[in-house]
């Protein structure tokens, strides 16, 4: 029996650069940054005063009563899921609910709900803690709420692997369809962690850039801080948002005449087994993840026309990813068009791999790679073709990779293909 094929038939997002797929894609291709200075009263003592907040407040899009029962991470995921589900054309009973599952990830879960309820506990006592706190803050709340919305009765999953979570959501969903556990999976990831505590914690790890956060920095300077592969990079910029993809078994999709954006050819999940926070400096775990994705998809290195890199704008990680690409693609590494859309969106943590999956699918669909902005001086340790304005991708059958790596040593690579 041939292996079941998995295709993308719906997409939705809300991101620092747009409130839906169309506006987000337009902004990415145009090279528009979503990074801004936080309001002056956000938390003045914080060493980082910039972030990629969602371009559209999800609470203004969703029904008020439903929104107040959801953590912001769930609100963002719901906005993305509403768009993806409508986009798929499955909303009118197009799939048996028992053959419909969810795999929507989060890196940190409902952290702002947890912290605001802790503030309430200290200020007003236990009687004022919300009875909704637990269903709001649990990490599977975004997946569970999406499951309720679409009526999913197969598995509803929440993979958690820090900054690789969103990509792992996609990879896990592919497995569910291949294993015959579902015909349709709603997959992706979300994050809403722009709060002083997680920001202070990431800053203490020296992971966040502290550039453009001083009292005299002009607001425009914030847009230049996320600069993957540039010699001036000094840490990532925190973003928030969600990406949701509707994945569908190929025969199921063609039988109903669905619009197919791309196929998911292969996935690779590995671990560094190196350190809880530091990436393997030679990128060996990531290399193995990419190799697995290529092998899994039966893809030759020369088939890869485009890579949406993890590249978060940290000194070590960006270089290591360049090594991975050379180790896996060999001489074809020079021909692949590489981008880091994080130069525009910042780093969405558990939402990153999902948003970047959508960017990768659209790059194949439109044959267009978004640029990497702020790349003024390419790090000499990086030998890749990284355009600073949008670049057309070649015609014919192509494949593209989306890479994500996370604390805990997690490496996830997903290979998409034109169809």
């Amino acid at each position, binding site marked *: 029996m041939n292996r079941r094929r998995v295709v993308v038939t719906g997409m939705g997002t809300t991101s620092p650069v747009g409130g839906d797929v169309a506006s987000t894609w337009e902004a990415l291709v145009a090279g528009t940054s979503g990074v801004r200075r936080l309001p002056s009263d956000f938390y003045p003592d914080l060493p980082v005063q910039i972030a990629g907040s969602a371009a559209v407040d999800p609470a203004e899009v969703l*029904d008020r*009563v439903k929104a107040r029962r959801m953590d912001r991470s769930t609100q963002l995921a719901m906005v993305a899921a509403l768009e993806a589900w409508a986009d798929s054309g499955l909303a009118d009973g197009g799939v048996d609910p028992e053959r419909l599952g969810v795999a929507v990830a989060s890196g940190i879960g409902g952290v702002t709900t947890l912290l605001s309820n802790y503030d309430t506990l200290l200020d007003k006592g236990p009687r004022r803690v*919300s*009875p*909704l706190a637990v*269903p709001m803050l649990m990490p599977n709340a975004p997946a569970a709420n999406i499951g309720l919305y679409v009526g999913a009765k197969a598995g509803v999953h929440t993979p958690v692997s820090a900054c690789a979570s969103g990509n792992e959501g996609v990879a896990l969903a592919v497995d569910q369809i291949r294993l015959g556990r579902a015909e349709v999976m709603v997959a992706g990831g979300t994050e809403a962690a722009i709060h002083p505590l997680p920001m202070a914690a990431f800053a203490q790890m020296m992971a966040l850039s502290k550039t453009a956060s001083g009292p005299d920095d002009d607001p425009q300077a914030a847009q230049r801080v996320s600069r993957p592969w540039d010699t001036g990079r000094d840490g990532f910029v925190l973003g928030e948002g969600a990406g949701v993809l509707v994945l569908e078994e190929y025969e199921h999709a063609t039988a109903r005449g669905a619009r197919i954006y791309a196929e998911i050819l292969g996935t690779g999940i590995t671990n560094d087994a190196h350190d809880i926070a530091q990436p393997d400096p030679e990128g060996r775990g990531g290399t193995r993840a990419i190799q697995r994705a290529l092998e899994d998809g039966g893809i030759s290195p020369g088939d890869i026309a485009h890579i949406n890199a993890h590249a978060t704008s940290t000194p070590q990680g960006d270089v290591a990813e360049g090594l991975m690409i050379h180790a896996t693609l060999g001489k074809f590494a020079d021909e692949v068009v590489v981008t880091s859309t994080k130069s525009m969106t910042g780093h969405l943590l558990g939402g990153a791999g999902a948003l970047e999956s959508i960017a990768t699918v659209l790059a194949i669909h439109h044959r267009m790679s978004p640029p990497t902005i702020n790349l003024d001086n390419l790090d000499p340790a990086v030998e890749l073709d990284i355009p600073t304005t949008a670049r057309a991708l070649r015609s014919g059958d192509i494949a593209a990779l989306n890479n994500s790596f996370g604390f805990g040593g997690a490496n996830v690579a997903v290979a998409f293909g034109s169809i």
Partner: protein
Amino acid sequence: MATTEEIRTDLAEIVNEVTGIPAADVQLEKSFSDDLDVDSLSMVEVVVAAEEKFDVRIPDDEVKNLRTVGDAVTYIEKAQAA
């Protein structure tokens, strides 16, 4: 001392905030669960908000006796008078 109607009006605003039910529908004879579709977690939210608004204490054991809006208003009136 707040009148029955003033308490009902304030309570109706709380129910509207928590559940989205129009405040005008929150009348004394209405059952929270059967008529207004207030689920158990939302009821806890309504009770806690009412405690803060009316400066009263509504013990958990009492909440199950507050079947209708009128039951709640009567309880709040008695608690305020005590």
